[in-house]
């Protein structure tokens, strides 16, 4: 068995298992922790697929920053209560599971028909990643995708402002009225 096969067969069950565990977890914090495990396994797959830069970004941005933000909001809202099992739409859960399995089967058939057992070329690190993955990626990013990169910076500014506007407490009459009323 080649090393990448061993890595795949070790981490693929962990990846799917942590995702399923996240699905069945009643407690939102436990779900977030399982999602962090899943993100780490995905980072390992990026490493196997010849993307060490995305491996680092995945761990720093996803498992680090984004999940900390999630855990912060979970703690802020204090949503550790039991989830209600009342179904607004009857039969939503079974139908969702059946449709989810159908989706997975569909993509499986499509991958089998189009890719089969095609293997990637072995010399990825010598040709495409020559001189380092981060360097090669920066060449592609700053030459072919420079405009999208700049647009992304606008997106980040807009989302930061949007978050500030949304999270701001309204300092209008409602707050003063609330102070007048005995709590």
């Amino acid at each position, binding site marked *: 068995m080649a090393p990448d096969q061993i890595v795949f067969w070790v981490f693929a069950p962990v990846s799917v298992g942590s995702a399923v565990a996240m699905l069945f977890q009643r407690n939102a914090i436990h779900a977030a922790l399982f*999602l962090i495990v899943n*993100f780490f396994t995905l980072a390992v*797959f990026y490493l196997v697929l010849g993307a060490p830069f995305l491996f680092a970004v995945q761990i720093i941005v996803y498992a680090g920053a*984004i999940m900390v933000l*999630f855990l912060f909001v979970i703690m802020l809202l204090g*949503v550790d209560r039991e*989830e209600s099992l009342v179904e607004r739409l009857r039969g939503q859960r079974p139908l969702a599971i059946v449709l989810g399995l159908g989706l997975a089967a569909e993509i499986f058939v499509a991958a089998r028909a189009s890719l089969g057992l095609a293997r990637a070329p072995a010399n990825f690190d010598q040709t*495409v990643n020559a001189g380092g993955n981060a360097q090669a990626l920066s060449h592609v990013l700053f030459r072919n995708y420079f405009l999208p990169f700049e647009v992304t910076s606008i997106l*980040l500014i807009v989302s930061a402002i949007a978050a500030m506007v*949304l999270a701001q407490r309204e300092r209008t009459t409602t707050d003063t009225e609330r102070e007048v009323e005995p709590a």
Partner: protein
Amino acid sequence: MKTPISYFVVLSAALFAIGTVGVLVRKNALVIFMSVELQLNAVNLALVAFSRLHGNLNGQVLAFFSMVVAAAEVVVGLAIIVNVYRRMHTANVDDASLLRW
């Protein structure tokens, strides 16, 4: 590289389907949001796998962009959830049904 690329694509499909089921089944807005993140990551895995298969870096750049967009999306989404929680004192998506007829 002995592992066929389709294995990674099938794994990505499985993760995407699990994320879809999570969005449809769960009621907690935060867990639904985490399922969306799982779906985004599944797509990223497929992009990186295709990048490896075709021998160029366009897929990796696209995955990189998708991570940036996901980060922006998380910030706005969590702000919306916090806002909804402040107004309705719930994170249950069934309770936020003011627009339901």
